[in-house]
């Protein structure tokens, strides 16, 4: 009996050692973990919504973020979107900014692609509840332009404090042709520039372009080009005005198959559009703003749709708990306008804040 105990003692001891050694290292190796929840109450007069003119409530996707240094040179980030029925890896990427020739950076994985200023930002960090319709209409992807791929970026060593970065991405390309089994790669390029205006204010200017196959069989492509600008004007430590806008143009080749001859012909759709918003922080915890967009629909008619909205936000105490109200007036061409009023509550645990001051 005692023999058996002695026999068992060693693996127990070894397991205990292993456990305590892992526990001792846990604080070092555990990633930063954050959870962001978003609740929304809204009322709309959109007649296509079965619940129109009635207040509706929804609990939007919960975001689960893991972020940590992988080693002295690389960082890893995972963002999971948790909805009622599924958990989706929204982003999972590693960035390598050290150990490379000066100014170079690498990124691999699945990520929100850096096209323009807004696409790479998670919606909870916008000062309003929804992304602009023009981005949804022109950029590939359902909720964002999000792809598997790799990026190389280089910061151009300009003199002074100007930050100028060029980046090139090679992407899986599936957001350009989401319903097809075959895959064709896509490419993206961006040049972004940041300048200080005096000591407290800044301006950012960027150019982005992407190209991918929208129909694998016909080998037709979509090309989207965009320019973006953001000015951040600081009047005092608490009062800040942000002006941001993007202009986009889409050049989409559409394939048409002649049913009789089977011949494939292509046509082009080239709509343009853009958005603009102003967000003014009155004090650290309060902000108000307005947004507008105008764009041509990406179809043969190229009818103009537009929307206008106003929003306000309040951080209850600090950055972890936010309340937002937003009124949006959407005017589709030759159709009835739709008004939507939204109240949004966003709360977070952990270091990743919903909307940093």
């Amino acid at each position, binding site marked *: 009996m005692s023999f058996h105990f002695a026999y068992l003692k060693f693996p127990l001891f070894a397991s205990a050692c292993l456990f305590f050694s892992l526990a001792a290292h846990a604080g070092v190796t555990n990633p930063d973990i954050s959870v962001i929840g978003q609740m929304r109450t809204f009322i709309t007069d959109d007649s296509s919504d079965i619940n129109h003119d009635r207040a509706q409530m929804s609990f939007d996707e919960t975001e689960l973020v893991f972020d940590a240094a992988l080693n002295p040179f690389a960082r890893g980030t995972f963002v999971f979107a948790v909805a009622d029925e599924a958990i989706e890896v929204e982003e999972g990427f590693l960035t390598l*900014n050290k150990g490379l020739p*000066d100014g*170079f950076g690498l990124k691999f994985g699945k990520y929100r692609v850096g096209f323009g200023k807004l696409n790479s930002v998670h919606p909870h960090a916008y000062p309003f509840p929804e992304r602009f319709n023009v981005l949804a209409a022109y950029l590939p992807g359902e909720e964002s332009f999000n792809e598997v791929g790799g990026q190389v970026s280089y910061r151009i060593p300009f003199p002074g404090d100007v930050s100028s970065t060029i980046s090139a991405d090679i992407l899986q390309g599936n957001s350009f042709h989401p319903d097809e089994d075959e895959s064709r790669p896509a490419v993206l390029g961006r040049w972004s520039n940041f300048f200080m205006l005096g000591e407290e204010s800044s301006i950012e200017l960027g150019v982005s372009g992407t190209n991918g196959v929208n129909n694998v069989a016909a080998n037709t492509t979509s090309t989207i080009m965009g320019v973006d600008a953001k000015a951040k004007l600081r009047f005092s*430590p*608490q009062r800040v005005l942000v002006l941001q806008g993007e202009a986009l143009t889409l050049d989409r080749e559409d394939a048409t198959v002649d049913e009789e001859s089977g011949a494939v012909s292509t046509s082009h759709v080239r709509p343009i559009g853009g958005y603009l918003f102003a967000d003014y922080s009155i*004090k*650290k915890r309060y902000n108000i703003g307005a947004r507008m967009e105008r764009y041509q629909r990406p179809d043969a008619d190229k009818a103009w749709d537009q929307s206008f909205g106003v929003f306000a936000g309040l951080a209850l105490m600090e950055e972890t708990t936010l309340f937002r109200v937003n009124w949006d007036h959407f005017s589709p061409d030759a159709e009835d306008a739709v008004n939507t009023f939204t109240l949004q509550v966003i709360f977070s645990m952990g*270091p990743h804040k919903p909307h*940093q001051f």
Partner: protein
Amino acid sequence: MKTTLILAAMLVLNAASSFAKITVGASLPDFASIASYVGGDNVEAFSIARSTSDPHSVEVLPTYMVRVARADIYLKVGLGLDQWADQIIEGARNSKLKIVDCSARVSVLEKPTRKVDASMGDVHPDGNPHYWLDPANGVLIAETIADALVLVDPEHAEAYRANLERFRSETEQKMSSWKLEADKIANHSILTYHSSWSYFARAFEFNIAAKIEPVPGIPPSASHLALLVNTIRKDKVRVVIQEPYFSDDGANYLARETGVSVTKLSPSCADVSPLHISRILIRYSRHLARCSR
């Protein structure tokens, strides 16, 4: 002729490299100031935050990454105060950058003794990070910076050590006159907005009767302000020290209710010049003396 030209060019390049200054980036101007002093002519120091910035939340700008990309050393405050600096350092893409935590030698105040969570406000789990406002800690910071400079630029090690000793002796000499200055102030009971002044209060024997924030990072409620009105009357507090980057609504309310004097003082100094700690302390103690008369 060709060989002579090449040799001359090599000589010039070699001379240029030996005269190249060590670039030191710092989260706060106070640390850049001490680095300037210890580094002397061999060091060029710059700060990311300004004296008017809230050191807890500095906006990470690409411009800062460009500056840190050219630096040899980066001085962090540490103790969780300048977590924003990590993003700047990461974005700087500077493999040769030496990162120095200046809190390494400091004996930390207000270290939580139990598990910290957000119900306690924005508590720093490693203790109060505003340690640079005690001149004795200024010397400890200078020692840490000198070590880093010696490591990165051993050629000028003697100069760095000599400057450190000069900094130490000047600070020690001045400490007695600062204490005398502080002793002249009749009322040592003060109210502060945030816990920025704990080290300063310990060094010059001020009593922080209460803080306007009920817990760190959380603005005061009406009931907390009512409690503060009682505290001010009971402890005969005459001065409220208010950081310029926090909302002064609470302090102004207290001034209206009790007649207490609100003094806006930044815990950092605007100019990156040697021995600014001495200047800031002299300025603060004089200001406090004026207000508490």
